[in-house]
């Protein structure tokens, strides 16, 4: 084959970095995979198209600030307002993070290296969380920077902006842990996409039905709990509790108190536990 150039086998005596480095490398590799970087052009279409759609409201907000000298969309309402796009992104891209390694049995190649199964799962969750966070944080940051540049009357809404970023991170973690858990149960990518989107539609569709039923029965405080079925409104409820923002729902708002926050933590825990169980089983094969 290449006898002429064959200079023989050379041993490697350079540094061998630890598991922290390997976990970071896997995180970056997975994050690149979410956006289709280093893959075919076709796998870049969906993530980047959705990314552009997420920027549109930001552009409108900036235009309103520049031309009409007034605030557009509130920072706190951005994630809730854009929820279908975020949900489609999660459904479309979560399977690309976990499904191929399971379907094509690549996992043994990772497990025969120093990295542990827990670190593998952590890298995948961090990558998906980072991707969703970027999807939300980039438009928010764009709006904030424009706000500073345009210099509207009154102080800049720094606190609102930072609050929205924190909530974007919480939402990203909640969606990732659940989305990846569901996607990892279905090694086929298409099935994973369908499962995640079906769950989102179910939670969204259930809200008005339950809300309407309870509301018409005169149980208004009970009806408020219905909003918490949907992850986006659930996280918004936490935001209202933490930062006293305006609820992004009509009338009454959410149930008060820390219950939504506890629910978020419990749900993240369930998602991560399901992922861990799924991978413990996969590793044993």
């Amino acid at each position: 084959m290449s006898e002429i150039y064959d200079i023989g086998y050379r041993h490697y005596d350079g540094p061998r970095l630890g598991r922290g480095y390997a976990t970071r490398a896997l995180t970056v590799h997975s994050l690149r995979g979410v956006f289709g970087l280093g893959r075919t052009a076709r796998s870049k279409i969906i993530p980047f198209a959705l990314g552009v759609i997420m920027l549109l409201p930001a552009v409108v907000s900036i235009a309103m600030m520049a031309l009409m000298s007034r605030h557009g969309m509130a920072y706190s309402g951005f994630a809730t307002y854009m929820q279908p796009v975020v949900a489609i992104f999660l459904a479309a891209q979560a399977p690309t993070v976990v499904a191929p390694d399971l379907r094509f049995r690549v996992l043994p190649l990772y497990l025969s290296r120093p990295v542990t199964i827990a670190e593998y799962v952590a890298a995948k969750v961090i990558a998906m969380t980072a991707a969703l966070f970027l999807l939300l944080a980039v438009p928010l940051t764009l709006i904030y920077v424009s706000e500073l540049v345009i210099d509207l009357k009154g102080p800049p809404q720094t606190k609102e902006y930072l609050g929205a970023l924190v909530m974007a991170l919480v939402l990203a973690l909640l969606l990732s842990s659940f989305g990846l858990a569901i996607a990892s149960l279905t090694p086929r990518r298409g099935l994973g996409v369908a499962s995640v989107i079906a769950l989102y539609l179910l939670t969204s569709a259930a809200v008005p039905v339950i809300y309407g039923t309870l509301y018409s029965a005169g149980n208004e405080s009970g009806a408020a709990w219905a909003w918490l079925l949907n992850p986006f409104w659930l996280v918004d409820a936490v935001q209202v509790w933490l930062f006293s923002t305006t609820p992004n729902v009509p009338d009454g708002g959410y149930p008060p108190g820390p219950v939504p926050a506890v629910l978020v933590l419990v749900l993240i825990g369930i998602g991560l536990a399901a992922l861990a169980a799924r991978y413990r089983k996969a590793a044993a094969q």
Partner: protein
Amino acid sequence: MHILATEGLTKRFPTVTALDQLTVTVGSGVTGLVGANGAGKSTLIKILLGLLPPTGGGARVLDLDVTTQGAEIRRFVGYMPEHDCLPPDVSATELVVHLAQMSGLPRTAARERAADVLRHVGLAEERYRAIGGYSTGMKQRVKLAQALVHDPKLVFLDEPTNGLDPRGRDEMLALIRRIGTDFGISVLVTSHLLGELERICDHVIVIDAGRLLRSSAIAEFTQATQTVTVEVEEGTQPLAERLSELGHSAVQHGRLLLVKVAGPETFDAIRDAAVDLDLCLIRLEQGRHRIEDVFREEVDAGV
């Protein structure tokens, strides 16, 4: 020095005992691990990688304990699984670079090592194409490359010749021999074909139903089992009779004659007998033993 050693290693699954009191040592060089499907080869490799806790007994790899130092073992060991394990949508280069990083190599070193090792396994320009379009032979090479990319001290190759055509098989075997000799990396290679391993191994371990059947240097193996296959155009029967008269053990096997080699004189006797009987000698071939033959011998010896 021992590359790996097991001591009374036992692994029981709920319904089956995969390894039963296995005590074996492996030195440097190329070691073959032979056994029928389900003999416990893959289970043994998983335990040696520290991925599966043994039920009883213990094992050390590179003088590290498999139950407590698994991560450290995996830093210096390479593993080529038996089954398909390659994602189709990335190129061989990208996959091997990534897996080198997963073994702890910094990015630039990972790139260099990946290029080096892909060249050594014989993947040229195609390494930039997506793996999905590769032939079985090329995929096996990528699997081998990822096992070598971090310059391990020891590699476990699980059925590396699976699914290859005869030529691909020969090339793979030659490559494995080179890994053990030129590269200076110890190899534990599994197969269910003993004949294959005879060509490349220094030492062969035979296991059956999780028990050690035999562990010996290849020279002992071939000495004990050497036969020569003789094919003549006509007159197989007279030749067999003549050789038996001369005190050689010759067994007729269809159109072929299997003669036990007692020493160089056996070959002379076959040649002379063929000349004396005026036979047309077509082929003299060293007998290739398959795992079944070893089993039969072991069973015979036991009786």
